[in-house]
């Protein structure tokens, strides 16, 4: 069920109705049960069997958390953490990378002339959102291990934390330290919560359906037949993709945050105008914030962070981003994408080791360069294969222009995307909208609903659902 679908609208209306209409506010436990049941139904709507994975991950880390809470000896604690890592990463590894590893092995066999020419790669169905909820449960186990988080004694609370449907399949990746306390002490939902939630949901829908999907139509056409297009088309296509993926993912995050708000939960922000970043470090502080902070706190710091020699720090940065790239999917393209960001972050750290990053001179030039470097890396992220990415770069100098019906809209939405980055922050925009008189807001919502209906494809998936 995607957020911009009729079935989600029906589902959400039923869940809200049951949550507020059928269960009294004083019966908090029943409301949590409603949320867990709704979340499992939401997740199972793709493929019911995969709810077992969600359940397994929940039970494993709840148990590990409890045991870590009562265990003081270092060695058993390390074993318990290892069990959580093995369970979660094993599950992630099998479903996400099993097919890829098998494919590479078949390629090696074929090159060496060992294998059977008709041997088949494994076709493993990737459970939606597995990368997100395994990282979420892992962070809980690591936090309990580090003593940052007290283990929860309520399986119900923990199940809500892991499966909460607004952010289950594509984040933001929520920390237990932020979420679990909200289950204990949550003020009643107010009119302000509802207004803020609605603004986020409607803005998110516009980002996804109107902006991202329209840009996606142009991007798909160009990347589907690269040899046809010249440099100008390709350049427009990669700008369009940069904004498509931003609108798509930040739109999803907005809807998730808004939906959670209607239940009285506050989720962390995931994006903050990433393309005005003046360097790679700032970019990662603005792009997919919940993932980049997860990688920093649980991978980069675990690898040693910047506590060792400068050389070790550069290696840690590179390794973190390489694995971050691989987190997005089992493909060499994501490895290259991660490697580019890792090398770039390491290089930036080297150049700014004297603290020159605070230098505000040439800020626009730095932003321009950073944006284009990000775009260059996006080519690997979007291209179907590595050879397509190479073909993309080799054709950048080619002449010619292929007119398409969606070209004008692509140009318009790229310009609008840039303008939205240069203007006030999204939070400020939401506040300004909420300051409008109520009837005017109603008119705005109706206009958005019509736009979303017209632009909405019959089947629209969010890009980050595949990760």
């Amino acid at each position, binding site marked *: 069920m995607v957020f911009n679908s009729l079935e989600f609208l029906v589902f959400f209306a039923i869940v809200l109705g049951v949550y507020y209409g059928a269960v009294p506010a004083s019966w908090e436990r029943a409301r949590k049960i409603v949320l867990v049941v709704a979340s499992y139904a939401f997740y199972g*709507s*793709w493929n019911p069997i995969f709810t077992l994975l969600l359940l397994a991950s929940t039970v494993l880390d709840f148990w590990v958390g409890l045991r870590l809470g009562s265990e003081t000896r270092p060695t058993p604690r390390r074993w318990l953490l290892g069990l959580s890592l093995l369970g979660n990463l094993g599950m992630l590894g099998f479903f996400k990378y099993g097919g890829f590893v098998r494919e590479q092995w078949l390629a090696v066999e074929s090159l060496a002339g060992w294998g059977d*020419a008709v041997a088949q790669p494994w076709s493993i169905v990737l459970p939606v959102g597995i990368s997100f909820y395994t990282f979420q449960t892992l962070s809980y186990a690591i936090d309990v291990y580090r003593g940052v988080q007290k283990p929860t004694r309520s399986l119900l609370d923990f199940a809500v934390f892991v499966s909460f449907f607004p952010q289950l399949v594509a984040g933001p990746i929520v920390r237990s330290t932020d979420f679990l306390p909200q289950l204990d002490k949550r003020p009643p939902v107010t*009119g302000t919560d509802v207004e803020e939630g609605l603004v986020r949901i409607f803005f998110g829908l516009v980002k996804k359906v109107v902006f991202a999907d329209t840009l996606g139509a142009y991007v798909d056409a160009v990347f589907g037949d690269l040899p*046809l297009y010249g440099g100008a088309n390709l350049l427009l296509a990669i700008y369009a993709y940069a904004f498509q993926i931003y609108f798509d993912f930040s739109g999803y995050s907005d809807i998730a945050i808004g939906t959670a708000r209607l239940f009285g939960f506050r989720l962390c922000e995931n994006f903050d105008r990433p393309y005005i970043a003046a360097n790679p470090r700032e970019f990662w502080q603005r792009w997919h914030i919940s993932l980049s902070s997860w990688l920093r706190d649980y991978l980069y710091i675990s690898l040693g962070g910047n506590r060792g020699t400068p050389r070790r720090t550069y290696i840690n940065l590179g390794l973190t981003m390489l694995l971050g790239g691989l987190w997005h999917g089992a493909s060499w393209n994501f490895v290259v994408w991660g490697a580019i960001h890792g090398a770039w972050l390491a290089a930036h750290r080297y150049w700014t080791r004297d603290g020159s990053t605070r230098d505000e001179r040439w800020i626009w030039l730095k932003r321009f360069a950073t944006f284009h470097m990000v775009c260059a890396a996006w080519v690997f992220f979007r291209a179907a294969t590595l050879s397509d990415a190479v073909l993309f770069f080799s054709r950048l100098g080619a002449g010619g222009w292929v007119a398409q019906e969606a070209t004008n809209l692509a140009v318009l939405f790229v310009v609008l995307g840039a303008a939205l980055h240069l203007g006030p922050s999204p939070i400020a925009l939401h506040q300004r909208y909420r300051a409008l008189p109520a009837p005017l807001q*109603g008119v705005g919502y*109706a206009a958005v609903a019509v736009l979303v209906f017209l632009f909405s494809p019959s089947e629209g998936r969010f890009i980050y659902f595949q990760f």
Partner: protein
Amino acid sequence: MQRLAIMFGVFVLLIAVAIGVAAYLWGEDAVREGRSMYSTAQYFELRAQRRLPSLPLVAWIGDSTIMPSEEVRPYPLEIGKRLKETRRAAETIILADAGIGTFAEYCAVGKVLSLRPTAVYIIANLRAFVRTGSERGALDAASFIPASELPRAATLPWHAAGITIPRLLLARTLAWPQVREGFYFAEGLRQMFRDQVYSRPLHLPLMTRIRKYERELKDWDAPIDEQSPRLVMLRAAVELALRNGIRTTVIMPPIPKYVMEFSPHSVKGIAARSGVVGRAVSAAGARYVNLHNALATEDFRDLGGHYNRQGMDKMADSIEPLVRKDVVDLFYRPRQER
């Protein structure tokens, strides 16, 4: 809360006005457009009607390779004609639409059950197994799945066709004419808008068309295994028919030779995949007729694997004995001899 009530009231009022204006201005065009987008269920509705209830019924379910066309008579009809000439007449119905695969075929089996056919023949085009994403006809035909089959249907891999279980349940409301008309209106209106703004290269050069054909040829040459969602759906279609006591045959249609010779692994690979389909069908209890290698290049009229008159005749020659046996065994032969 008063602010919210005002907002909601204005919102609902304006949406109602927008729907009214759209229905007044573009209503008929939109419904027509919507019908053309979701044609599979309409084709099935139109063709799934018995005209000769005293005769045995042979139902064919498949893609464009068995669709009636102006150029050639499809082989199911040719077989029907031959049976009639030998006084072993059977009524033939064809539930087919271009580009459909095993998801829509599963739904079509649900549709033919009520007609009590003597035998069902399902076309399993290898090309249909390698597609990813949505499948034409699968959603609008989902309303044909019998209610008693729903618990089992919920366990099938609809996700591979972009269909969630709630969507499958919502699709059942399309069985009501008013809902279906509303659905056509909404989808048609949206399509009319999208046609105005979305991506279509204005002039496709020759090389682009050639690359498109190359991709089409490669469609046949992709791995499948027993867990492939489209094969799971075929097995479910077969089992649904068998559970209702209908003799079921799955036919793997011929693949053009130039497709099989497209890459060094294709001939072996295609044979292996045909074998995978065959094993799954046989394990489900149906008969499997593997004709993937049955026709020569000159028997096809295009790259898509459609036959010319000569190819159709050869297909009728290959399959007619099976159909004749089914019809005679199950209908004409006295019960004690069956």
